[in-house]
């Protein structure tokens, strides 16, 4: 009899299978099964929360079975629940469940709705597998499964060429990251002798790190020191994180992935899948922590991504893309937090971010649903038409901007505090200045979005109306979560401490807990007012013409507007370098492989056949003689 | 008594057995011809041969003398060597087969127990089939060597017919092997003496065996190779005098052989109902005499059946013969083997 946690993992898979095997004829049944599967998982998860709060960092549940093996190598498949994975479980099943319900309203009437729910269930299963995994191989399997289900969901509107392109882009970009990820896994497995997290952590003794890990060419040959091994392996594993969590420079797929249905954007590209990278960093924290090089790579990459994405978000007009770049930026924050040693801060921000960003995406989806466009220049004044959506959207925005008292304030301030007291390896400008600038930019672009969408004169077409209850109720719940978590911490700081401490892996530095004191509040308000005020001036009161700023900023604006030319660089690389390299390869293939090897062997066969055919006289007698000669030769050789 | 202990006695006894058996068979064959004529006459309400001796009892001797003194014609167009050899080949297997047939309980001569069989082989029945499978050559070679139309047709017919029915013959006996677990004819007889005759245990096999025996000996209703209305006289059309007589004797010897085989395999050999092997043993050498008489009674009765059938049942057409063999008897024989196997399952395990 499997125990509870296995149900969390496999119910969505069963649901996907059921829908695929026949339930798809009835979309209501399909949706019901899918929703029931994810909510059942949520309720089972919730039962573990009290245990987790009392047990702290300990392991709550661990079971694994032998899945495959070859010789001494054994691949196991396990379910591991500790504070970290419990947190992630709550996010995935809870937010996922709400998004399932939202999708019921959003996708209503779509001919492929059953397929959509099957994909959703498959995705939930894949994602939960990562969360549950107790070893790297299992993580890799589910990493790929997540990639596949993400591909399916982004390309859900498969008749739309742009959706197909986006799906392909997401998949290919992830492949680049997964390539490094796989090499990293193999290296870690080879060096440590196990892919099991506990085993890996136990194997990484100081003695082990002091010796040379890879010996090539004897005692005088090349070797890799423990320190080098750590950051090389960690860096390769980080490539996987870069792919899934869309960190610079593998971020390019995420904005395009907005081609998928909005619930998908909310679920995958805001709350869960992109968070998998951050989750993995926390899981493997024991691997990164001893190496300052690895930690500094992570921290600087995260900081840069956060800033980089925020600058791009200021110039976009597609409502979902703005949110997508905002997501990139926030993920940058989380990765940076891990790099600075604050895994609990990262996980905390991940959780709160899942609440309000999912809410924002779903709100955006409701708006798109109402006005049938993504462009914020064709919106405006929607505040009066869709009041519920507006208020939830607005509060979530405040939370994202870190308005004091809301959940984002606590989590983001936890990260900013880390940047204020950086470790020795941190670059002063990148770590201390940029995150603060990014926070200001966050407020700016979010309020630009707010003012252009909800305030001002109506620029929309048709008659938009408020979303149906199945769509707005998840918004309300998510807003409530985003708000209430914040205020509950205000009244009871120990809750937050308990909440954060359970996600802290062993060996992580002691965290700094945010206090609701005047300097912190003022600092936060300062940042908020700066950004939001600029937006207010430019986009609400129109005291400054945005066009003038554009011309004034000139090349910088063009840089932002063209997303720092990253996509163009990639295009250029593909068009010139990769294409030429492919031509070279093709030339090699044509000349050496096909002309010489393939055709050559065919020619040799034919020629030798023609030669041998001369001995096919058709005379039995000659055959017998030849045969006899062969037998005689064999006999003579053996005597 | 074995060869290694007393070689001379062994050779002498076996030579005696061979001579006795051969002569008995030849005499029986000769008189079987007479019997055939008498019986056919009786059936057709005629008198039959009655000039030579009482009731024509010396008629076979007169026939033999006639054959000996006729001119031995060898037609010019034949393949001489094979033409001469073929009658001998036809006669030989029928006689060799008799070597493994037990004719009576063992007798005691000068303190030695002598089994009343020429060669008591482990693989008696296989030997028997092996030899009888050679019988076809006599007919085939005669047909071919004659180098003329009807004999060749007769020879080809004969070979197809005999090969086909040999299969049925073998398959029908498989059931008996399965039940008895031995290939030694002496053992099979002994088991029947103390038990029940095989024709009651294996009725289907018995019927198939009898039908196949008719076909193997080229007797009516299966005498297609020599059907006189179609092929003049079939494979022996070109033969005369003593060579013809050898075919003739060969046919009757084969009848005798198959009759003996039926008696041994299905009718209990020398057994008399309600007599056990102890009873035979208590009679001493008289037991052997009684057994021999019993055995010969069965053989002669079966030969009478041959004759009876010949003058009663019309000839089959060739396609009917083949259909009967391959489409009726072969499936029945196979099913019979399976059924016998099922009945004998506990014995095997």
């Amino acid at each position: 009899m499997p125990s509870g946690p296995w149900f969390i993992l496999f119910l969505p898979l069963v649901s996907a299978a059921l829908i695929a095997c026949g339930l798809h004829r009835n979309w209501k049944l399909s949706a019901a099964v899918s929703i029931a599967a994810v909510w059942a998982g949520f309720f089972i998860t919730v039962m573990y929360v009290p245990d987790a709060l009392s047990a702290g960092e300990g392991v709550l549940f661990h079971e694994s079975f032998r899945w495959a093996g070859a010789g001494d190598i054994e691949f196991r498949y396990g379910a591991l629940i500790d504070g970290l994975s419990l947190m992630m479980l709550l996010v995935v099943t809870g937010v996922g469940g709400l998004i399932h319900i939202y999708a019921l309203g959003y996708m209503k009437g779509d001919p492929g709705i059953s397929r959509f729910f099957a994909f959703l269930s498959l995705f939930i299963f894949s994602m939960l597998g990562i969360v549950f995994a107790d070893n790297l191989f299992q993580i890799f399997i589910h990493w790929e499964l997540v990639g596949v289900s993400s591909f399916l969901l982004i390309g859900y509107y498969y008749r739309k060429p742009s959706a197909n392109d986006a799906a392909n882009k997401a998949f290919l970009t992830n492949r680049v990251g997964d390539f490094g990820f796989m090499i990293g896994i193999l290296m870690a497995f080879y060096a440590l002798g196990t892919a099991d997290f506990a085993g890996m952590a136990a194997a990484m003794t100081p003695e082990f790190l002091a010796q040379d890990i890879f010996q090539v060419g004897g005692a005088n040959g090349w070797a890799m020191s423990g320190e080098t091994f750590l950051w090389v392996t960690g860096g390769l594993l980080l490539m996987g994180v870069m792919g899934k969590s869309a960190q610079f420079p593998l971020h390019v797929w995420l904005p395009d992935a907005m081609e998928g249905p909005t619930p998908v954007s909310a679920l995958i590209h805001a709350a869960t899948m992109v968070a998998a990278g951050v989750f993995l960093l926390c899981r493997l924290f024991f691997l990164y922590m001893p190496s300052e090089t690895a930690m500094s790579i992570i921290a600087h990459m995260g900081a840069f991504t956060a800033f980089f994405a925020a600058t791009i978000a200021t110039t976009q007009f597609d409502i979902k893309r703005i949110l997508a770049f905002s997501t990139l930026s926030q993920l940058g924050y989380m990765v940076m937090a891990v790099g600075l040693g604050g895994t609990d801060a990262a996980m905390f921000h991940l959780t709160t971010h899942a609440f309000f960003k999912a809410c924002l995406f779903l709100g955006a989806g409701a708006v798109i649903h109402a006005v049938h466009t993504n462009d914020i220049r064709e919106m405006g004044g929607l505040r009066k038409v869709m009041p519920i959506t507006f208020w939830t959207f607005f509060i979530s925005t405040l939370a994202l901007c870190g308005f004091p008292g809301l959940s984002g304030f606590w989590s983001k301030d936890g990260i900013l505090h880390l940047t204020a007291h950086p470790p020795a390896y941190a670059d002063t400008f990148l770590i201390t200045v940029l995150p603060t600038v990014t926070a200001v930019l966050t407020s700016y672009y979010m309020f630009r979005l707010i003012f252009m969408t909800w305030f001002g004169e109506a620029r929309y077409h048709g008659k938009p109306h408020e979303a149906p209850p199945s769509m707005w109720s998840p918004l309300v719940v998510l807003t409530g979560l985003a708000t209430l978590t914040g205020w509950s911490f205000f009244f009871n700081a120990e809750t937050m401490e308990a909440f954060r401490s359970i996600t802290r892996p062993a060996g992580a530095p002691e965290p700094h807990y945010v206090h609701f004191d005047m300097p912190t509040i003022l600092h936060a308000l300062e940042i908020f007012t700066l950004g939001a005020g600029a937006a207010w001036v430019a986009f609400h009161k129109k005291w400054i013409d945005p066009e003038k700023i554009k011309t004034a900023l000139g090349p910088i604006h063009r840089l932002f507007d063209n997303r720092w030319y990253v996509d163009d660089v990639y295009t250029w690389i593909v068009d010139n370098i990769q294409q030429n390299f492919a031509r070279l390869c093709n030339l090699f293939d044509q000349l050496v492989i096909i002309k010489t090897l393939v055709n050559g062997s065919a020619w040799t066969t034919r020629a030798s056949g023609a030669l041998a055919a001369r001995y096919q006289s058709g005379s039995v007698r000659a055959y017998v003689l030849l045969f006899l000669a062969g037998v005689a030769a064999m006999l003579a050789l053996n005597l | 008594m074995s060869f290694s202990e007393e070689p001379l006695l062994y050779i002498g006894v076996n030579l005696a057995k061979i001579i006795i058996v051969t002569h008995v068979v030849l005499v029986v064959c000769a008189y079987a011809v007479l019997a055939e004529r008498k019986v056919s006459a009786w059936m057709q309400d005629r008198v039959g041969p009655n000039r030579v001796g009482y009731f024509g009892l010396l008629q076979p001797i007169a026939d033999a003398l006639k054959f000996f003194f006729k001119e031995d014609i060898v037609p010019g167009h034949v393949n001489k060597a094979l033409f001469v050899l073929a009658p001998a080949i036809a006669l030989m297997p029928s006689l060799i087969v008799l070597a493994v047939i037990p004719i009576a309980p063992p007798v005691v001569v000068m303190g030695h127990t002598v089994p009343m069989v020429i060669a008591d082989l482990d693989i008696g029945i296989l030997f028997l089939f092996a030899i009888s499978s050679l019988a076809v050559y006599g007919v085939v070679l005669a047909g071919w060597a004659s180098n003329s139309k009807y004999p060749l047709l007769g020879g080809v017919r004969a070979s197809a017919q005999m090969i086909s029915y040999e299969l049925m013959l073998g398959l029908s006996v498989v059931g008996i092997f399965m039940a008895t677990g031995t290939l030694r004819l002496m053992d099979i007889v002994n088991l029947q003496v103390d038990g029940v005759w095989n024709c009651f245990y294996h009725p289907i096999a018995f019927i198939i065996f009898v039908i196949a025996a008719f076909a193997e000996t080229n007797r009516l209703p299966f005498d297609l190779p020599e059907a006189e209305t179609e092929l003049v006289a079939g494979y022996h059309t070109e033969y005369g005098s003593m060579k013809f007589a050898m075919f003739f004797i060969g046919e009757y010897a084969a009848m005798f052989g198959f009759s003996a085989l039926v008696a041994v395999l299905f009718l209990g050999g020398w057994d008399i109902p309600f007599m056990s092997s102890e009873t035979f043993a208590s009679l001493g050498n008289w037991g052997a005499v009684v057994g021999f008489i019993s055995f010969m009674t069965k053989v002669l009765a079966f030969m009478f059946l041959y004759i009876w059938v010949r003058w009663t049942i019309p000839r089959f057409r060739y396609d009917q013969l083949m259909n009967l063999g391959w489409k009726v008897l072969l499936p029945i024989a196979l099913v019979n083997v399976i059924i016998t196997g099922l009945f004998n399952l506990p014995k095997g395990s």
Partner: protein
Amino acid sequence: MELPFFFLFGGAMVLFTLLTMFVKNPVHSAIFMILSFASTAGLFVLLDAYLMAAIEVLVYAGAIMVLFLFVIMLINLRSDELEGMKVNPLMVLAAGTFFALLHRAISDLGAAVDPVRANTFEGEPKVVAKYLFTEMVIPFEAVSLLLLAAILGTVVLARRTRDA
């Protein structure tokens, strides 16, 4: 004691084989071949392989050779048609070389075999049958399939097609 029988049967076998291969008339060849097989069966008896002796006669002499004869008759070859054989020195040389090599192989082997180890089998057919139906049951079944395939192939090949 057995030696005379060996030379009797062995000599007959060689003689009849020789005649089989080198007489003009194919029917005579077939007859001599039957005799050769019969001699082989005699040798099998000397080697205590009674069952195989019976099968040799039953299958080879009784069935296979009948087929040969049948086909020879069907084709109705005349002696003059298959005149002679083609002998060239190369073939004789090849055969000689082959036998010489065999001789070397046999003499090498003979030195390695202990002549005393010759043994006799008891209850012969049962032993063979038991081995055949236990250890060798899969090859046995495979052979039955082979025979089935041969039957089908023969029927297909022998069937006269309408256009032919």
